């Protein structure tokens, strides 16, 4: 399948792909009870993965991904949590940071996975710090790492590796 020529169609395609990731995050967490055990709490972050892969494979250097990530961050906070300022910050910041390291990351699964790993860790730590400051969670540091951070990184890394090839193909069509 050849590349899509029209710019509007390209933008709509990217937005639709990101929206699918947006809703998968919530649906998977509700459908799979395995992700909700008290000692194995996984936060599915497929949207973050899609944003990082889109930035790393973006040959056009357009600014639209930043605005998409800001918009989706606001919608994410509005739909899934009642607190604006969580994902509203995480998604645009990830896009900006990934854009600045794009030249150092070669196009292979391992390097892109490590970018995702670092971004995911940073976002989970940010969420944990906000939660602790607001006294909305009583989990201490050790439990955070063993019950939240570890399982989240594990499951999301597996999902990344499984979805890498199909997603990069789709992103290639949308360039």
């Amino acid at each position: 399948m050849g590349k899509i020529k029209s710019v509007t169609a390209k933008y709509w395609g990217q937005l639709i792909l990101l929206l699918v990731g947006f809703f998968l995050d919530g649906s998977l967490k509700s459908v799979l009870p395995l992700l909700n055990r008290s000692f194995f709490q996984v936060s599915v972050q497929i949207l973050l993965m899609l944003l990082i892969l889109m930035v790393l494979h973006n040959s056009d250097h357009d600014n639209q991904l930043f605005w998409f990530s800001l918009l989706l961050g606001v919608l994410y906070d509005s739909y899934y949590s009642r607190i604006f300022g969580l994902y509203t910050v995480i998604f645009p910041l990830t896009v900006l940071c990934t854009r600045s390291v794009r030249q150092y990351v070669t196009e292979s699964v391992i390097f892109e996975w490590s970018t995702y790993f670092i971004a995911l860790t940073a976002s989970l730590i940010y969420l944990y710090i906000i939660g602790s400051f607001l006294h909305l969670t009583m989990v201490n540091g050790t439990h955070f790492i063993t019950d939240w951070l570890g399982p989240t990184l594990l499951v999301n890394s597996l999902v990344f590796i499984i979805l890498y090839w199909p997603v990069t193909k789709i992103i290639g069509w949308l360039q």
Partner: protein
Amino acid sequence: MHNFFSNKKLIIIMVVVILVVSMITASLTLGQKKSQPALIHQAANDGLGLIGSVVSAPINGVRDIGDNVHSLFTTYQENRRLKANIDDLAQTKAQINALKKENKELKQLVKLNKTLTDYHQMTASVTSRSPNNWQNYLIINKGALAGVKKDMPVMAGSGLIGRIVEVNQTNSKVSLISTDKSLSNKFAVEVTKEDGTNTSGIIGRYDKEHNLLVMTNVAAPDKIKAGQLVITSGLGGLTPRGLYVGKVVSIKKDDYGLASSIFIKPATDLNNFTVVTVISRDVRHG
């Protein structure tokens, strides 16, 4: 690189930090006070809910198929277990119907309109859960148009699972009781003891390690034993009386020995349900 923290960048970073902190504070404080979020917020959530149903429908379909396949394997044992309970159930049902009729006639006799035990039910299905780990929110597919209001209790299976915290036109958010420190109102419960008396209290927190609800600051825990039933007391003003919460597991004295904490096992498994019931209390408080 030595100009990295030039004035312009520093100012931008400071402005962003101040904006983020004020966003978080504003959404927390304003969200608590209002019964429904702002119109634009509601419109965004409703739109997302509609689009989300497109994505979650196939996923829920796959989950249903998985559940059906799993049921096929466990059908034989479940059948035997259920047959053993059927005779009991028929008898209990007959008794309950008789008691309900008597209760209704007695209420009419004393001209009592509605009491704390009267309520209506609305069923809804769970479309998504919050991906964030310290926010245990469910998103259900009924909203203000169906009559859902903030602070209504929500049940699944046979037990209480949480409270409605945000209501949009076509969907709502439920805060589960397993949230560590919930921003929503706490549940007023009572333990039904063997001699017929009750000990009232509130569910103070959730013990994540053992998955138990904790009724804190109980002054006189005499005669409370493991296995006793815990129901909502209706005294809080938001929840009707008589909703099943769970069973007492253990009692522990607090650090100073003055009060005790009662540990309660919730009636429902908080991880595995698809359909919930929203309870609308008939007696309005205030």
